């Protein structure tokens, strides 16, 4: 696969996964935390309210049993026993003067009969205002009673609760992110495994199967489905191979016999025209046989056969060989051929097939590169990939016809008159694919440039 063809998981997919997992963790944790916050708060309030209720009941009991003196006695006792350490209590008479209590004076804006008012008070010996929750009662005799509880603690608690909640939130976000990444990593690994097997299949190696035990149940399902598909593909390819092989074989036998008969006929034929006619037939049969061989060879390369013949060889030398091989015939056509690029480039692959592909490209350049100029064979080492480029200065192939040119038996219309099987580029592509690569046709301005990309 060429770099251009291989899809790299884009960063945005990771970012998307991260954002998704973050939103998910927020969606879960925020309501929970809010609930905890509200619950704690209302629990506190209930406790405060309950305390005030109790004190109100006690004081009013004192009032009912001993009128104002009884009430004052209760208030004093409350203060003395320290029951109201965090509380406030004040009794004023009808004109607003303090009768008893630990608060200096009735807050001006406060009416009697309130059940729950929050306001700051200055308790005795305190210069700082302290937040209180207050309850006021108007007594039947005209006095007013004020009961309060400090809610300073509640504010403290609220603050620390808030801090804890923020902390928990941060933790949730972090955990969400990490969890998301791990999940993504696991999924990615499994997806990559699937991709790897698919890649091998694309390269013609059908023997690999996915591990149905690895990963979760969902992946086991996918793996099982893909494996079933692979089995079917392998079966079909095997059938196709058998059919084409036997078809080609069956075609070859009568052709071979025909060729043999023509050969012996040529031995008996004495006249020159007869000889020539027979020779022409012989040439055509040879062409047919070559086409059959090429078809078989393409089929085999496409099916991944030939991989076991991979070995290290000097690609630069191969280029030089082909160049040297074609030089005389190229020069005879009034063209030139030369090698450019890397020296001593070593590649691991099938030398015979790559040589054959290169010869096809040189042939093409020779047949369609008419009009003078140079045929250039060059190689580029890209680390992960090796590229062989064959360019000519002929008329080239228009962009819209290039894909067509690579297909089996497709010969571009203007080229029909020239000799050729229409299998040249198809074989080159099959060979490139056997090596995990591809061929790319480009404009050489003028001419055609064929880039054969081979993976390392």
């Amino acid at each position, binding site marked *: 696969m060429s770099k251009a063809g291989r899809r790299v998981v884009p960063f945005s997919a990771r970012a998307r996964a991260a954002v998704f997992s973050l939103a998910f963790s927020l969606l879960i944790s925020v309501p929970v935390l809010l609930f905890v916050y509200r619950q704690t708060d209302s629990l506190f309030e209930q406790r405060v309210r309950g305390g005030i209720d109790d004190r109100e009941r006690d004081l009013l009991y004192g009032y009912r049993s001993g009128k104002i003196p009884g009430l004052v006695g209760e208030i004093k006792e409350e203060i003395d026993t320290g029951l109201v350490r965090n509380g406030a209590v004040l009794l004023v008479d009808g004109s607003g003067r303090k009768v008893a209590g630990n608060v200096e004076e009735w807050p001006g804006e406060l009416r009697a009969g309130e059940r729950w008012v929050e306001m700051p008070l200055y308790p005795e010996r305190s210069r700082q205002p302290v937040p209180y929750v207050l309850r006021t009662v108007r007594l039947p005799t005209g006095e007013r009673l004020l009961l309060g509880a400090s809610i300073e603690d509640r504010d403290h608690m609220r603050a620390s609760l808030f801090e804890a909640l923020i902390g928990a939130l941060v933790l949730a976000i972090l955990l969400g992110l990490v969890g998301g990444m791990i999940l993504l990593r696991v999924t990615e690994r499994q997806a990559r495994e699937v991709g790897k097997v698919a890649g091998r299949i694309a390269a013609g190696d059908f023997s690999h199967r996915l591990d149905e035990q690895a990963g979760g149940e969902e992946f086991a399902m996918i793996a099982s489905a893909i494996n079933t598909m692979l089995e079917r593909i392998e079966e079909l390819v095997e059938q196709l191979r058998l059919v084409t092989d036997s078809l080609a*074989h069956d075609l*070859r*036998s009568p*052709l*071979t*016999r025909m*060729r*043999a008969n023509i*050969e012996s006929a*040529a031995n008996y034929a004495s006249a020159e025209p007869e*000889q020539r006619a027979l*020779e022409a037939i*012989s040439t055509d049969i040879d062409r047919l*046989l*070559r086409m059959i*061989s090429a078809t*078989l*060879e393409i089929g*085999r390369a496409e099916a991944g*056969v*030939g991989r*076991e*013949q991979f070995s290290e060889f000097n690609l630069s030398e191969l280029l030089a*060989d082909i160049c*040297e*091989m*074609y030089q*005389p*015939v190229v020069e*005879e056509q009034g063209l030139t051929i030369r090698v450019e690029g890397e020296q001593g480039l070593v590649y691991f692959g*099938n030398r*015979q*097939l790559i*040589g*054959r592909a290169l*010869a*096809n490209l040189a*042939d093409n350049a*020779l*047949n369609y590169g008419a009009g003078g100029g140079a045929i250039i064979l060059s190689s580029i080492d890209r680390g992960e990939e090796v590229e062989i480029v064959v360019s000519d200065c002929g008329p080239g192939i228009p962009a819209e016809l290039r894909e067509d040119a690579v297909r089996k038996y497709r010969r571009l219309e203007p080229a029909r008159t020239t*000799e*050729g*099987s229409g299998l*040249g580029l198809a074989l080159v592509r099959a060979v490139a694919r056997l090596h995990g690569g591809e061929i790319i046709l480009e404009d050489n301005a003028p001419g055609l440039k064929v880039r054969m990309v081979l993976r390392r």
Partner: protein
Amino acid sequence: MSKKILVVEDDETTADYVVGGLEQNGFVVDRASNGRDGLFHATDGKYAAIVLDRMLPGMDGLSVLSAIRAAGIQTPVILLSALGATDERVKGLNAGSDDYLTKPFAFSELLARIEALQRRAPTAAQSVTTTLSCADLKMDLLTRRVERGGRRVDLQPREFRLLEMLLRNQGKVVTRTMMLEEVWDYHFDPGTNVIDVHISRLRKKIDEGSDALLLHTVRGAGYMLSENA
């Protein structure tokens, strides 16, 4: 004395074709249609060459070949196979065959290869030759000097190897694919006439200006270096 060839081939038509052709060319031919019979004949060791099909009933061609070699019989073997791909060919050569021919083949190709093996077999044991010649064409393998009638001929390295191959096989047909295999080490058939142009260049260098032509074209088969036209 005529030479004996063993043909092991199960396909009737191909066997007829090969045997008929060989007999026409003066060989005495023994025929076997399965691997076991083939091996039985081959162990005699009296053959000049064995033509062995790759896929045989009873015993596979490669197994027969291995068995022949294991028995210490060095008779040259040409494998015939419908499997033309290069990987199959390497398997065959590794198993001990001297040549590998893909079906379908022209009989002339098979004949040329059998002839070439005849020559190769005895010289392999002889002392190393340092000069080759044909009429007034002389090649010194050590100094890499080539002369035609005392006139020095300058050859490119590849032309030198081509000529060397033709000289070693003089009087015998050398096919284009044989040249491609031996001189370039490629086992495919280039569509265009690349070899022909190489030969015509070589011919120009060695035959131009001489009365006797040495490098001949054998129609429908290949080329031959010979004193006699």
